[in-house]
């Protein structure tokens, strides 16, 4: 317990968390501080490119094995399964309609790549390493949850979800997924030599760019919380904190069954604990326009994301280390 608290304290005082807190505070104080839309998009492109490339280069140097394929399969299964778990919890803890609950549940089966990036940087800072292919696991976990949410609606809801042909293509070829997977493959092909060539661009400035991106995320989360406070009932707030812990338990089980390294187990926990705020909200607006976007965006970005960033990541790290002896 002391270890978790010490780790949480260290994590809370890291630059990335403090910049996130600055963003939230600025938004609450109604400061005019803002990161222009194009800059925010540029920063996210940089982060996806860097994390994908480094993951691919790591796989190239460590080689591939059956665990890679099994990890990908486990990621897909978790992404399909977690929305069903989330939906059950939401129906028990809140009074959300089936439509809203299904839309929120879809977010919790998918992943937050920024939470993944933050967890990766914590792993590095404590001297652990992880399987490079966890980046690919992150990519395959983006989409299945959306299909799961639509299945929940078809099974339990009265609303008709629009599952058109173009939506499947949009989900699978979402810009974030294409860049992440593309960079991963290029990193894999070019290996350590390729990484060395572009290291000054993707290694050294990485933490600074992450700080700026988290400042923007803090501003967005703070504004969302300020404007949508009315939708955040105690039950919903409790779900936003409980669900990541439940999800991380599933990620822990998957990581241990696969025999991943302590860092890999921790990343699997983080992926299963995080909630999407990029791919899934866009898909839900198209497929399930009746669902209230302020509920799922506020919950995912305003509650679960800050929870994972501040307390979740140290907890997942401590549990993964304790159970793997890492």
């Amino acid at each position: 317990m002391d270890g978790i608290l010490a780790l949480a304290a260290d994590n809370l005082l890291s630059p990335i968390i403090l910049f996130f807190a600055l963003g939230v505070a600025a938004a609450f104080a109604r400061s005019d501080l803002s990161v222009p839309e194009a800059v925010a998009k540029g920063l996210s492109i940089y982060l996806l490119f860097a994390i994908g490339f480094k993951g691919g280069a790591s796989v190239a140097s460590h080689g591939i094995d059956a665990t890679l394929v099994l990890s990908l399969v486990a990621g897909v299964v978790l992404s399909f399964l977690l929305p069903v778990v989330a939906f059950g919890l939401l129906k028990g803890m809140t009074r959300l309609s089936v439509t809203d609950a299904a839309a929120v549940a879809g977010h919790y089966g998918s992943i937050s790549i920024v939470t993944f990036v933050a967890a990766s940087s914590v792993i590095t800072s404590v001297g652990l390493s992880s399987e490079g292919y966890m980046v690919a696991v992150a990519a395959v976990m983006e989409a299945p949850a959306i299909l799961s949410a639509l299945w929940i609606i078809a099974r339990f809801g009265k609303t008709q979800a629009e599952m058109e042909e173009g939506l499947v293509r949009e989900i699978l070829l979402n810009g974030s997924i294409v860049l992440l997977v593309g960079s991963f493959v290029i990193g894999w092909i070019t290996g350590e030599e390729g990484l060395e060539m572009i290291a000054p661009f993707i290694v050294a400035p990485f933490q600074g760019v992450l700080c700026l991106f988290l400042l923007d995320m803090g501003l967005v989360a703070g504004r969302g919380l300020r404007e949508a406070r009315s939708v955040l009932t105690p039950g919903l707030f409790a779900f936003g904190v409980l669900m990541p812990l439940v999800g991380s338990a599933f990620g822990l089980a998957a990581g241990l069954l696969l025999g991943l390294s302590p860092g890999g187990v921790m990343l699997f926990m983080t992926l299963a604990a995080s909630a999407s705020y990029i791919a899934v909200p866009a898909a839900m607006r198209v497929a399930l326009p009746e669902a209230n976007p302020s509920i799922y965006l506020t919950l995912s970005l305003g509650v679960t994301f800050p929870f994972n960033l501040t307390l979740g990541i140290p907890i997942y790290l401590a549990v993964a280390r304790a159970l793997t002896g890492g």
Partner: protein
Amino acid sequence: MQTQKAKRVEITIEAVMEDRLTAALIKAGVTGFTILPVLGGSGRSGQWSREGQVSRAGGMVSVVCIIRPERLETLLEAAFEVVERHIGVVSVTDCEVLRAERF
């Protein structure tokens, strides 16, 4: 200067629906339109702003078409199919254009 009567249709719609709307317009034979970014606003579904968007889910765009009055019904039918269930506003105003042969 010779001007001709026309209809100006402005459709403010969620950014994620932009491609679907323009595809429907093109399919209905409306090949001329302009897409404008929307900075922010407020409506029945609450406030929205472009600032710090991490997803297109919260953003809006405005699609403006200027057409001959006799083609208005076709355009509105095509647009309605796309915007029916979504957040947005469709408005029609009278306007006058120069070089009518272009519309």
